[in-house]
């Protein structure tokens, strides 16, 4: 899952080196916290959040198999 997120986010930003993703595992849900370069924040969110929402949808599809809830936060 982490890999997938890395792939998606790094493909979108200008400075992939500065992408870090941390995983906070709870009992029922996993929270992924994405950190990107300040100049890349807009690119990850997209117009009206379209990109970040598309990422959420894809990651959720991946999470179906594990039966866990996934949420994605972008740290500013």
């Amino acid at each position, binding site marked *: 899952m982490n890999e*997938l997120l890395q*792939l998606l986010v790094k*493909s*979108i930003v200008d400075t992939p080196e500065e992408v870090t993703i941390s995983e906070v595992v709870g009992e029922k849900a996993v929270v992924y916290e994405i950190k990107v370069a300040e100049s890349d924040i807009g690119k990850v969110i997209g117009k009206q959040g*379209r*990109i970040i*929402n598309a990422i959420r949808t894809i990651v959720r599809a*991946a999470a179906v198999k594990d039966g866990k809830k996934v949420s994605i936060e972008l740290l500013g």
Partner: protein
Amino acid sequence: MKEVIQEGRTREEALKAALEKLGADENDVFVEVLETPREGLFGLIGSRNIKLRVALVNTAPEPEIEPDPNRIASTLPGSPRVFSDDTPEDQVRDFLEKVFKCLEVECDIDVCEGQNDISVDITGKDAGVVIGKFGQTLDSLQFITNVVMTKKFGNKKKVVINVGDYRKRREESVHKMARSVARKVMKTHKPEALAPMPPQDRRIIHLALANYKNIVTTSEGTGKNRKVVISFKSGSPTR
């Protein structure tokens, strides 16, 4: 960017007032509908005005809402473009292969470059996972692929992703649903709202019912919640 939020009884009224405030021409602004008007009970109780966000833009006029997936990435300044010797077909296949590997989905990817677009066909036993509810996952994947291709490789052709004959089947089922709801509306004369759905599905409904004399289809709500309302036309148009 200068902008005003303006309410009004109709879209025209609101827009006119907003343009006066901004001192601008209709061509210089970007209009976003924040709230759609609603007719109240007997036109009195619970009626709601239309609310617009009108923003001044310096560049060429932008079309209203319905964002074009390609535009977001292409308008971002300073994105370094990596042109490689690979054909766009290879790049698309490469990217999707990586995604599917992470998704642990086994499927075949068939990429075919057409004149105006690059069509991708996905087949395999796990293809259902890729489609998702109402094709949400498929649409998201297509959107992201477009963003990535535009940004990284300066690819200008739209990427269309299909799983088997999913899109065709979806079109047929949406068509069928539209007709059956229209029949119901013609019997009851009461408007029926359908579930929120993406633009291409709404388009199918509008087109499917365009020939029905007593039926009017309108789209209401904004963004993800935009849905088609099928209503009965009695003499005067509803809009």
